[in-house]
C-alpha cells in the first residue's frame, strides 16, 4: 500500500509503537514504574527473530533437510574456509554468508513448507515471550527494591549497556556491528509484519483496557498513588509490580518481533533510546498518562509528525538551508518531539486525554441485582 505518507513501513511502525506505548503506559502511567529502558525490551523481540531465530531455523533445517544442508555447507565453505553449519548461520564476521544462508536456504524452505514454518513461528514467538520474561524479571528485581530515580537510572543504564555494548560489540550474539538478517515469515514478510503488528496492537489495546478497568487496574493505580495505603488495604505491591512489568515486557517484545520482520538487515542500534524509549514516553505524556486511548492518540500524533518530516525532507532541508535532506529527516523530528514533550509537560500536564475514573459496574445495577437476590445471604464482597 502506498498513498501519500502512508506506506506499509509506516503502518508497521505505527502498530508497533501503539503496542509499545500501551505497554509503557501500563508500567509508567498506571503503576508508576519509570521504565527508561524500554528499548531493550523491544529489542528482545528482534533478537528472537535474528540471533536466536537463525540458529533455531538452521537447526530445524538441518534435521529436516540433511542433504540440502550439506550442499549449502559445501558451497559456503568456498566463501568461508573451515566453516561449520552452526558457525555459518551466525557468521557475523561474514555477513554475506549469513545473508546467503538465510535468504537462499532457510527462507525458501520454510516458505514452501507450511508446517515447518508454523512450527518455527510458534517456537520463535515462545522464545520472544521467554526472553521478555527473563529481562522483565531482571528489571523487576530492581523495580521491587529501588526508589524512583535510582530505578530510572538503573533501567536506562542496563538497557543502554545491553543494546550499545553487549549486543553491539559481541559478534556472535546478534551479529554485532554488522547486524543479522532476521528470519521472516510467509512469501510476503511485509504483509505478515503488517497483519501481525496490527493484530497485536488491537489485542494490546483491548487487553490493556480490560486490565486497567479491572480490580487489578485499580490496584495498580493505588500502588502508583500511595504505596503505603495500598499495602494497608492488603495489596501485594511486589506481585502487582512484577505482573505489570512482565506483561508489558512481553507486549513490547512481541511488538519488536513483528517490527523486525520488515527490516531485513539490522543491528541492535536500530533500537536506540531516542526512538524506542524517549518517543514512547513523549507519546504517552502527550496523549495522557494512564489513559490507553491517550497512548494511541499520542502515538498517532507523533508518528504522523515524524513521518511528515521524513516525507518532506527535501523541501524542509531546502527551506532551512540544511546541508542534506537526511538531517531534516532524522535530527529535526527528534528536536521537535523533545520540544513538544516539554511544552506538553508545562501546558498540558494531564495530556490530551486526561486519566478518567476507572469504569465500574453501575451502582444502580448492583442495587437492582442485590435486591432481586435479596433472599440469598450476604452481599458480594467488594474487591
Amino acid at each position, binding site marked *: 500500500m502506498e498513498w501519500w505518507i502512508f506506506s506499509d513501513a509506516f503502518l508497521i511502525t505505527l502498530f508497533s509503537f501503539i503496542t509499545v506505548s500501551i505497554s509503557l503506559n501500563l508500567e509508567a502511567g498506571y503503576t508508576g514504574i519509570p521504565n527508561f529502558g524500554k528499548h531493550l525490551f523491544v529489542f528482545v523481540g528482534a533478537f528472537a527473530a535474528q540471533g536466536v531465530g537463525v540458529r533455531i531455523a538452521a537447526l530445524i533445517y538441518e534435521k529436516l533437510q540433511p542433504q540440502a544442508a550439506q550442499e549449502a555447507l559445501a558451497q559456503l565453505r568456498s566463501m568461508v574456509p573451515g566453516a561449520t553449519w552452526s558457525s555459518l548461520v551466525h557468521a557475523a564476521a561474514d555477513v554475506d554468508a549469513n545473508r546467503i544462508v538465510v535468504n537462499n536456504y532457510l527462507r525458501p524452505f520454510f516458505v514452501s513448507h507450511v508446517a515447518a514454518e508454523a512450527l518455527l513461528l510458534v517456537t520463535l514467538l515462545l522464545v520472544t515471550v521467554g526472553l521478555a520474561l527473563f529481562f522483565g524479571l531482571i528489571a523487576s528485581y530492581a523495580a521491587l527494591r529501588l526508589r524512583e530515580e535510582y530505578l530510572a*537510572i538503573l533501567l536506562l543504564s542496563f538497557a543502554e549497556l545491553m543494546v550499545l555494548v553487549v549486543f553491539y560489540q559481541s559478534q556472535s550474539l546478534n551479529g554485532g556491528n554488522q547486524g543479522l538478517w532476521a528470519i521472516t515469515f510467509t512469501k510476503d514478510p511485509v504483509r505478515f509484519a503488517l497483519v501481525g503488528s496490527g493484530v497485536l496492537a488491537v489485542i494490546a489495546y483491548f487487553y490493556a483496557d480490560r486490565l486497567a478497568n479491572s480490580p487489578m487496574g485499580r490496584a495498580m493505580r493505588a500502588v502508583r498513588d500511595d504505596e503505603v495505603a495500598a499495602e494497608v488495604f492488603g495489596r501485594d505491591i511486589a506481585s502487582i509490580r512484577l505482573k505489570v512489568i512482565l506483561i508489558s515486557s512481553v507486549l513490547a517484545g512481541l511488538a519488536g518481533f513483528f517490527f523486525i520482520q520488515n527490516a531485513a538487515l539490522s543491528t541492535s542500534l536500530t533500537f536506540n533510546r531516542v526512538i524506542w524509549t524517549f518517543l514512547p514516553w513523549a507519546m504517552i505524556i502527550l496523549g495522557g498518562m494512564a489513559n490507553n486511548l491517550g497512548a494511541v492518540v499520542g502515538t498517532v500524533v507523533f508518528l504522523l509528525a515524524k513521518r511528515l518530516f521524513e516525507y518532506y525532507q527535501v523541501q524542509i532541508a531546502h527551506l532551512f538551508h540544511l546541508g542534506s535532506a537526511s538531517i531534516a529527516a532524522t*535530527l*529535526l523530528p527528534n528536536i521537535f518531539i*523533545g520540544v513538544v514533550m516539554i511544552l506538553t*509537560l508545562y501546558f498540558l500536564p494531564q495530556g490530551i486525554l486526561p486519566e478518567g475514573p476507572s469504569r465500574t459496574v453501575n451502582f444502580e445495577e448492583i442495587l437492582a441485582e442485590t435486591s432481586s437476590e435479596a433472599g440469598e445471604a450476604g452481599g458480594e464482597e467488594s474487591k
Partner: protein
Amino acid sequence: MAIIPSLPYTLESIAYASALGLLSMGLSLTFATTRVANFAHADFAMVGSVVMLFLIDRFYYLHHGWGVFLTGSIVGGIFGGITGLLTYLIVLKPLADKGTSSLGLMIATFGIDIILMNLLTLILDTAHGVHIPKLIGASVSSYEPILSLRGYRVFGYTIVLPIAAVLLTVIFHLFLTRTKFGIAMRATIENPDLASVLGVNVNLVYMVSWFFSGFLAGVAGALMAFAFKGVDPAVSALIIVSVFAGSIVGGLESVYWGLIGGFLVGLVEKLGMTIINSIYRQYFVLHLGAPNVSLLNYEKLLSLGLVVIVLLYAPQGLAGVDWGRLARRLGLKKPVEGGG
C-alpha cells in the same frame, strides 16, 4: 604481555577517571540541590567538546601549545555552564513551579538530552569547517602537545585533566567553606525551607548550582574531546551511563563522594578491564581455549556491576558507609572504649 598496563595507558585512564569525577560531581550537585536526576548531564559535556572543536577549527593559529587546554576549558566550561543555567531557567524551574513531580522533571531532562544531542549534531553537520573539513566525527587529537616521558609518547590532555579536576575541586571546596554564598548553598542542600526562612535566596543557589554543574561538565567535555576518536554528540549515550554509575557509587547526594565515585568508576572501567583482559588473554585464551575476543569493549559492564554491588550492599553509596565502623570491624582501628 604484562598484566600491568603501560604508562601512557595508565595516564589516559586517570585522565578519563578525572573527567568522570568532574561529571559525577556536577550531577550529584544538581541532584543534591534541586532533586533532579539530570539525564542531560553528558550532553553538557558534549557542549564543551563541540566548543573545543570549534575553537580549534576557527582559531587554529592561536593554538600551538598548552594554551589550547586553557582557552578550551574556560570557554567550554562557560558554554556548558550557560547550557546548564538555561536548562534550569527555561525548562526545570517553570515545571517545578507548576508542581511537576520528580518523575516529570526527570522526563523533562530526558527531553533536553534528546534536544541537545540532536541540536549539537545539527550544528556540527551544517557548519562549515575552516581548518577541519568535516566537523562531525572529526578527531582533534592531532592538535594537542605531546610529551615524551621515559620513552613513551604521552598526550597532553592526560596530564591536564587530573590537574584541572584537582584545581576545580579545591576551588569548589574553598567556595563552599570560605564564602558566605557557599555556606548558604550548603544550608540549602541540608534544608531548603529553613534556609529560605533565614534569608537565603534559594532560587539563586539553584541557579548557581546548575551553572556550576554545567561548568564542570563543560570543562570535562572540552578536555575529553582529545580522548575521543571523533567528536560526535551521540557519544553522550555511553558517557551518561558511567556518570550515573559514578554518582550512585558516591551516593547521589554528596558532591565530594560523587567526585570520588566517578573517579573510582573511571579507574575500574579502564584499568580494571585492562587487567582482566590481559589475565583473560594470558590464561583463558592461551591455556583453556576460550574465544579470542577483546574484553576491552565491555568495560562499561564493570561500572554497571559496581553500581549493582553498591546498591545491594550500600544503598546510600560510599557517602553512607560508616567508615570508622568498617575500619574497626576490619581491625584497622582500635575499638572505641566504652562503646560509641
